């Protein structure tokens, strides 16, 4: 037997751990600011870069990809080496992964407040950063598979399988959802339009939750929970079933984000059924984690690491029960667009991802620095602050969500809407928004305590850059007399690694070939009166995207009487064929805008943007006064129209060189004239003109054509 001595790389683990703490605090701070802006709209100090619409994606990206992402890498780099009994495949790739990821985060932190966004949730970053993500992710995947190939332990522990599923699936998801047509360095248009874009986006969005926030963390749970408890997982068999069931079910559940929208009904039902099936493996996993502690609950009382883990696994169980329930169409008809969704994701995010990350940090720092945790007491304070934070966050927001849902649907005895003014439902729940920010503050305070505790721990100890270990080399068993010998040779060792890479390459190549071909064909309008946006409206729509309006306003009227009474005719798939990207939104903090066109005069919009509370007392919408003074970016118009034409919008050839500008001037002059009749003076070259033109266009294509009702 050939015993080999090797070293585990602790430096890379420490780097990711520090990044996790720093970005965690940053992400939570941004979240807190967003929460405050929801009851105190002036909190942005009328500064456009920190307005809610722009920092909402910053918050989600920071906590998902910066905090949890770094936490994931930290845990994987630590556990994978030990599970494989091997150092990481390549130190260069490890550090490339680390610095690449941090640069991407910095890129996100700069571009999102500047308004460079694709508007697709959790995929907001513009195309140059998307390319960078793909490169760094592939570097990580190669490092992961390389380490697995050179492992010294034949059996691949279940955690490794979870890591593999993350690497493979995120690659595919990211590539498919990122198909965009650049129109300049920081602007691009989705290749998909309308309903198709929505389906791709939520296929991605749901699986980002599944394969970025869930599977890697489950792998980490299966490593760190037994380690911290000092006893094996309750049932290893169950963990294997958990993995394989999850990996085959998860990817089909995406359409549950689009229930009752213009998505075909069968796709909605498919998503709902798969979502419900997910309860089984998820709860199997949760019980497996909790039952590991049977007979060891006394340790939970003493060890903060286990405390955080138990709470995290419980939160996982709660979120994975609630998620499928919310995917039931009847429940979804109430919960969708309300704060219920926000409560759901924060239960999962703060509880499952946050607490598991904290537990890993508390587990790793003393081991990396070869000392004891500086203060167990402080860690316990952190635990309870975090718990209270979660409760103070989710309980008020559940109340808010259900209140909103019920108020939107309430009819009075004469069969009119009980609360015809949308604002009433928001004014009602503002106190809940205030309470929520207390919860967020408590949670953040706990995280700060942890940062201090970990800092003191690090100071007290001595960092061990490499941990020496020994294990026998894994013998190559391909020549074994087994009968299935050629199959083994094909898949085991290096060939397996290359097979996976080859499949990925083929998949990516195939996508790039197939997608444009399919979609240009499919974007033929089915409603004749639906026409492409005019040049001014295109620029206005891009402003709508830049300001993140869709963070609070949906553009999708569901086929319920409560919605058609309030907003007008329900939305149809054919109305969105020129929407690159789709802007349905997922949340209503303000009314739906799908039929906003013609509802109010131009001057109303002007005054409303300048100060929403002047026209709608009690509104929580921020002021957008900079739109009134900033000049519209007309230089980019040709590139934008050309890019849109390339993704299938039928602008005539040469339209962007001359005719488009003329069209734009004419429409801008019209808006200015309308504003004047509303006693508002405005230059035609201001951004607000384009935004008004876009808002007045919304939903009018089919409104004006078949039934000629008076615009109210």
């Amino acid at each position, binding site marked *: *037997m050939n*015993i080999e001595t090797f070293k585990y790389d602790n430096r890379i683990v420490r780097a990711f751990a520090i990044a996790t703490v720093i970005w965690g605090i940053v992400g939570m701070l941004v979240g807190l600011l967003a929460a405050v802006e929801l009851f105190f709209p002036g909190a942005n100090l009328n500064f456009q870069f920190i307005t809610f619409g722009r920092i909402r994606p910053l918050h989600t990206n920071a906590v998902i990809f910066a905090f949890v992402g770094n936490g994931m890498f930290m845990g994987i780099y630590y556990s994978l080496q030990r*599970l494989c*009994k091997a150092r990481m495949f390549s130190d260069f790739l490890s550090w490339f992964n680390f610095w690449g990821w941090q640069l991407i985060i910095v890129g996100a932190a700069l571009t999102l407040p500047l308004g460079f966004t694709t508007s697709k949730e959790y995929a907001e970053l513009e195309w140059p950063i998307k390319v960078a993500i793909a490169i760094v992710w592939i570097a990580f995947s190669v490092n992961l598979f390389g380490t697995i190939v050179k492992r010294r*332990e*034949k*059996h*691949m*522990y*279940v955690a490794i399988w979870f890591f*593999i*599923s993350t690497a*493979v699936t995120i690659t*595919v998801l990211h590539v*498919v959802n990122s198909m965009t047509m650049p129109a300049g360095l920081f602007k691009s248009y989705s290749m998909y339009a309308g*309903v*198709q874009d929505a*389906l*791709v986006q939520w*296929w991605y969005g749901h699986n980002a939750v599944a394969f970025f926030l869930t599977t890697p963390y489950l792998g980490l749970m299966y*490593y760190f929970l*037994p*380690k911290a408890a*000092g*006893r*094996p997982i309750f049932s*290893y*068999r169950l*963990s294997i079933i958990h993995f*394989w069931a999850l990996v*085959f079910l998860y*990817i*089909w559940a995406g359409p549950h984000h689009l229930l009752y929208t213009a998505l075909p009904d069968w796709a909605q039902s498919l998503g709902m059924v798969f979502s419900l099936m997910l309860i089984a493996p998820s709860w199997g996993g949760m019980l497996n984690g909790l039952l590991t502690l049977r007979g060891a609950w006394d340790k939970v009382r003493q060890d903060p690491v286990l405390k955080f883990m138990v709470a995290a696994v419980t939160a996982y169980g709660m979120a994975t029960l609630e998620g499928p329930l919310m995917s039931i169409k009847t429940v979804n008809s109430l919960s969708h667009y309300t704060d219920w969704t926000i409560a759901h994701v924060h239960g999962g995010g703060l509880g499952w991802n946050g607490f598991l990350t904290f537990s890993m940090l508390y587990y790793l720092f*003393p*081991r990396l620095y*070869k*000392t*004891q945790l500086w203060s167990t007491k402080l860690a316990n304070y952190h635990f309870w602050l975090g718990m209270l934070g979660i409760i103070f966050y989710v309980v008020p927001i559940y109340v808010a969500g259900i209140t909103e849902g019920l108020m939107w649907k309430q009819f009075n005895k004469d069969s009119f809407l009980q609360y015809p003014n949308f604002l009433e439902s928001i004014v009602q729940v503002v106190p809940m928004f205030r309470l929520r920010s207390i919860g967020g503050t408590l949670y953040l305070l706990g995280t700060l305590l942890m940062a201090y505790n970990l800092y003191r721990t690090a100071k007290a100890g001595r960092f061990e850059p490499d*941990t*020496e*270990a*020994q*294990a*026998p080399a894994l013998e190559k*068993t391909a020549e*074994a007399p087994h009968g*299935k010998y050629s*199959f*083994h040779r094909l*898949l*085991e060792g290096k060939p397996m690694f290359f097979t*996976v890479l080859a*499949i990925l390459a083929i*998949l990516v190549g195939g*996508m790039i070939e*197939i997608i444009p071909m*399919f*979609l240009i*064909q*499919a974007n033929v309008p089915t409603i004749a009166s639906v026409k492409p946006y005019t040049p001014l409206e295109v620029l206005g729509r891009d402003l709508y995207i830049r300001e993140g309006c869709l963070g609070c306003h949906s553009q999708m009227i569901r086929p319920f009487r409560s919605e058609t009474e309030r907003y007008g005719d329900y939305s149809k798939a054919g109305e969105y064929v020129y929407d690159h990207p789709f802007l349905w939104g997922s949340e209503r903090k303000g009314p739906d805008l799908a039929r906003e066109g013609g509802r109010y005069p131009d001057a109303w919009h002007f005054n409303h943007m300048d100060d929403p509370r002047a026209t709608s007392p009690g509104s929580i919408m921020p002021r957008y006064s900079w739109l009134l003074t900033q000049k519209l970016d007309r230089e980019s118009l040709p590139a934008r129209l050309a890019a849109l034409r390339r993704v299938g919008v039928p602008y005539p050839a040469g339209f962007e060189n001359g005719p488009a500008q003329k069209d734009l001037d004419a429409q801008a002059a019209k808006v200015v004239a309308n504003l004047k009749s509303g006693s508002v003076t405005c230059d035609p070259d201001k951004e607000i003109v384009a935004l008004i033109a876009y808002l007045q266009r919304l939903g009018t294509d089919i409104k004006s054509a078949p039934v000629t009702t008076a615009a109210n």
Partner: protein
Amino acid sequence: MSVVIILMLASLAVGLVFVGAFVWSVRSGQYEDTLTPSMRVLLDDTTTTNVPQTSKSAVSQVSKPAERADQRRAADWEIGDTAGLETGGTLQSPTAPSATALKI
């Protein structure tokens, strides 16, 4: 809705990759032993509490499960007659992790 075809292809491709991986894992004997892997994870750690131990004992700790792993590897290729041997090997293994666990 032709995008559905793309998504189906992508999802099925991912699914097929994992079907392949599953078939490989079963046929290569990854799941023939569903007991020791859960215990082996608990070994091989140089935790802070293990630090005072001499490096000698750490080495012996590492090599012992390694020997067992080797036996298991041999057993993989002779299914049937050595199956009993394998469980014999795994039955002893719980002592090692629980011993370290107690120290923690």
